[in-house]
């Protein structure tokens, strides 16, 4: 493989999760060795054209590619390499929660949606559970919208509300890291703005990694941005820096929409 120009800034903040020479191979190699450090309690956006490897990379972080692809290299969550076979992926996914493009609530009550995961994994009193549910719903600004009525069916909520419910459902398991794969691409601008406001609030306590095709969104909410192209991480820098003065011509062209 011919060497390609890359520019990778080293974050100054403490690192929550990092990859070391992470590669993904389906039938062909989809991700070339990737070393990326995610600052704690910050939002990092992964951007790049379709097929650039950004979603593939994201899905490795909580082992969503297991059984679909060969994932090699290290994924260090603190001091632990979570890419080893002996790691319990169900426990891992409590620590690294995920939100998808389409809202996917269970077709049950809001209460069921929120309590299901917790009841499965923890012994918790009824009162503590109730408090936890309220806190999670407040974090996503849904508590007042549903007027505290947890018995409502989740599918009665609007798309944006469903997505925020799914975010609250993830928060119920008190993860350290939140992975978001295009969480707002199915939502209208107002619902999108609400999700973005949630994320800006949540980053005080969580490390957030978001894949987005919406460059304006990456610019608005992220602290760091990673640019992927043809299966390779090409540029990683503070968002402020990258959106004003990217280091690579390739990044500049992508951000300016000058591809093709």
């Amino acid at each position, binding site marked *: 493989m011919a060497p390609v120009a890359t520019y990778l800034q080293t974050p100054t903040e403490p690192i929550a999760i990092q990859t070391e020479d992470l590669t993904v191979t389906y039938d062909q190699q989809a991700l070339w060795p990737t070393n990326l450090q995610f600052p704690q309690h910050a939002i990092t956006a992964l951007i790049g054209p379709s097929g650039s490897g950004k979603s593939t990379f994201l899905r490795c972080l909580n082992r969503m590619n297991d059984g679909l692809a060969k994932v090699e290299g290290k994924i260090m969550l603190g001091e632990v390499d979570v890419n080893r076979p002996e790691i319990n992926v169900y426990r891992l996914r409590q620590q690294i929660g995920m939100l998808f493009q389409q809202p996917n609530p269970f077709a049950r009550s809001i209460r069921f949606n929120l309590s299901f995961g917790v009841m499965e994994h923890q012994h918790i009193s009824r009162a503590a559970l109730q408090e936890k549910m309220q806190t999670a719903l407040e974090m996503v600004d849904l508590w007042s919208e549903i007027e505290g009525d947890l018995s409502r069916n989740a599918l009665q909520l609007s798309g944006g509300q469903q997505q925020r419910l799914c975010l609250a459902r993830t928060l119920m398991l008190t993860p350290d890291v939140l992975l978001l794969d295009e969480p707002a691409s199915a939502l209208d601008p107002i619902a999108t703005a609400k999700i*973005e*406001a949630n994320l*800006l609030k949540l980053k005080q306590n969580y490390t957030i990694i978001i894949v987005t095709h919406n460059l304006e969104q990456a610019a*608005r909410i992220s602290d760091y941005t990673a640019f992927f192209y043809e299966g390779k991480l090409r540029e990683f820098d503070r*968002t*402020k820096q990258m959106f*004003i003065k990217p280091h690579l011509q390739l990044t500049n062209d992508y951000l300016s929409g000058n591809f093709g």
Partner: protein
Amino acid sequence: MGQQFFDELKSLQTNFMDMGINVSEQIYQSTKSFIDHDKQLAQQVIDHDRMINGSEVSLEKQALYLMALQQPVATNFREIVSILKASADLERIGDHAVGIARETIYIKGNQRIPEVEEMIAAMTNSVRKMLEEALDAYFRENVSVAEKVAATDHEIDQQYVQIRQALTNSPQLDSELAPASASYLMVARFLERIGDHIVNISEWIVYSKTGNIVELGNHRRD
């Protein structure tokens, strides 16, 4: 636009107002140093200009980040562009204050013309009043006040012409007075230019609120 954007915009507005107040103070101190022949104060004005320049740079950075990252449109966009442009005018006003302070330091001889010094003091007051009213118009988002401020530049221009006439038409034109006269003329000229920059600031206030790029006043831009 999210809450984060409005917080940052507010901080940008506050920083712009602070810069305006500091620049107004620089005009006052520089002419005071000139009239009082206070070289120490003049040096303070010159030193202080570094801070003014620094605030312009940080305002520019703040405005550029907001534009690049938040991509504001409509009123938000116009407001940020206006601050960006008006802060450049404030910075130039600061440079003119430094020019006045330098005259204080370089002025030779002790021959003075009290009547002209009085006229310069009066002109300084007019210019400062004009700047403060422009900042007030900005703060209150008041277009008609901004337009009124720009119209007063006419008076500043007249004051300049009067000082010029007082210097050249002086019957006792004395070679002893020539160096001081040159400095008086320079200072009056700096003040006149400051007036023009305040007109520009008023124009940006109008743009920010109405979206119209206007040419206010009939000031010379030579």
